[in-house]
């Protein structure tokens, strides 16, 4: 099973190309909000999902996508999905 810290690091790597917020002084953690803090727009979110699906070999439904509000919510989703799929 993949460790949560490893998942977090990989999610952050996948998130990086979508962040529009200026990098100076930007701190990204589990509480960072995708829209308000990182300025990732809704169209970017769909592309992020494609990256997550390809990287983690998972499937993200449109319903699950609505839960993607913070970095932590993505990490938890991936963790839960990979745990289930790897169980």
């Amino acid at each position: 099973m993949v460790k949560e810290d490893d998942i977090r690091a990989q999610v952050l790597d996948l998130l990086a190309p979508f962040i529009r917020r200026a990098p100076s002084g930007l701190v990204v953690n589990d509480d960072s909000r995708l829209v308000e803090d990182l300025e990732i727009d809704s169209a970017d979110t769909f592309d992020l999902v494609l990256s997550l699906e390809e990287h983690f070999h998972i499937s993200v439904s449109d319903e699950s996508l609505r839960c993607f509000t913070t970095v932590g919510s993505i990490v938890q989703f991936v963790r839960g999905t990979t745990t289930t799929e790897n169980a």
Partner: protein
Amino acid sequence: MCDFPQAFLLKWILSPGTTGVVSGERKASIVRVSGRAAVTGLGVVAPGAPNLSAFTSLLLEGRSGISYRPEAAELGLGCNVAGVPEIREDILNQFVIPARRRAMNPVISLATLAAVESWQDAGFALDPQMSGPADPRTGVVFGNCVGGIDTVCETIGPMVLGGQTRQMGSRRVEQVMYSGAAASVAGTLGAGGPVVAISTACATGASGLVQAMRLLRTGECDRVIAGSVETSNVFVWGLFDAMRVLTREWNDQPERASRPMSGSASGFVPAGGAGALVVERWEDAMARGARIYCELVGAFENCGGQRSAGTMSRQSPEGMRKCIEGALEGAGMAPGEIDYINGHLTSTAGDLDEVKALMAVMSTGEAFPWINSTKSLIGHTLGAAGSIESIATALQLYKGFLHLSANSEDVHPEIAGVGPRIVRREQSSVAPRTALKTSFGFGDVNVCLVFRRAN
């Protein structure tokens, strides 16, 4: 600052009958309103010249940017030569954040490169992080002819037909929407005025300058980035190769393939690139001490209406002549006051019609202006041609030279009268004071611009 009251101008510009119908009054579509328009910034990506500095050198040296394209040969195209612009990723990455960069296909990359260069060349600051407010007094007019056709053919078509629509991602719309280039330029520069796409086929770039002039003169903008873009790839080449309008006889000599006004011309050389010009109110440019390349003195656009021998793919001689006359009238200049013509001149039979129309309007013999074709060096950049060639015109006026019109040693006998006025290397030191730029496009649409040296 204005020659005419604003209310009059708006009424005049926007009144019915301003669409340039040939049978109507010519005055109806003349852009001659108030104020003066200064060209203060240039940006370009052309075949063999990835930026303004390289493009200036290419013109000064009379060097060809056309090359042999094995991919065209492998696909069985008749024309295996083309002008392909280099997209400098390293430059793009300097001012485009990754989140925006990933949405850029070639057409948007080229447009952005040219627009940013023009903006900085004009002396304006660029904020790569796009953190400041938009400027409501800056407008963008940016167009193209066939746009993101490579994205349609290489990505959208195969993925949709292959049942992979979901995997296409969210950025394909902005890559192929007609206003994609204009919108991307506006976003990169923070333009908050009118942001519009424009298309008149191969006259697109010149039409953008007409529109820019209108925006300045109606007072809607203080400055406008006017530009156009075209990609160069097998899909674009294939469109025109199928029409048999591309040359097929010079595949082994790429630099000799584009032969405007030549008796051995056999079709045009397809090319791509982007050009952008910052045009601003003369008074503003002077007040901020900007370098002024030249003044856009007048402009005229019309359509032959596909009558009087005009068709979708051939200009009506009468329409071309009226357009040239209209531009001169709009500039308030007599034919004899034009020193130099940067022709549309593509290396097709259309050259003969164009030169004959020019001969009908301009003084003949030694009084005929010097004439050259930028396409003889870089090929036909289609929708980008009007912008790139206007940049070439501005550079020649500003720096005081004329670039070689290549491959016209054997002038076509029907236009032999202008032969001595075609620019050879010997005329490179001629410094024109005024210039007429012609641009023509499918649909029988015509645009003529008149430029004047700033000092």
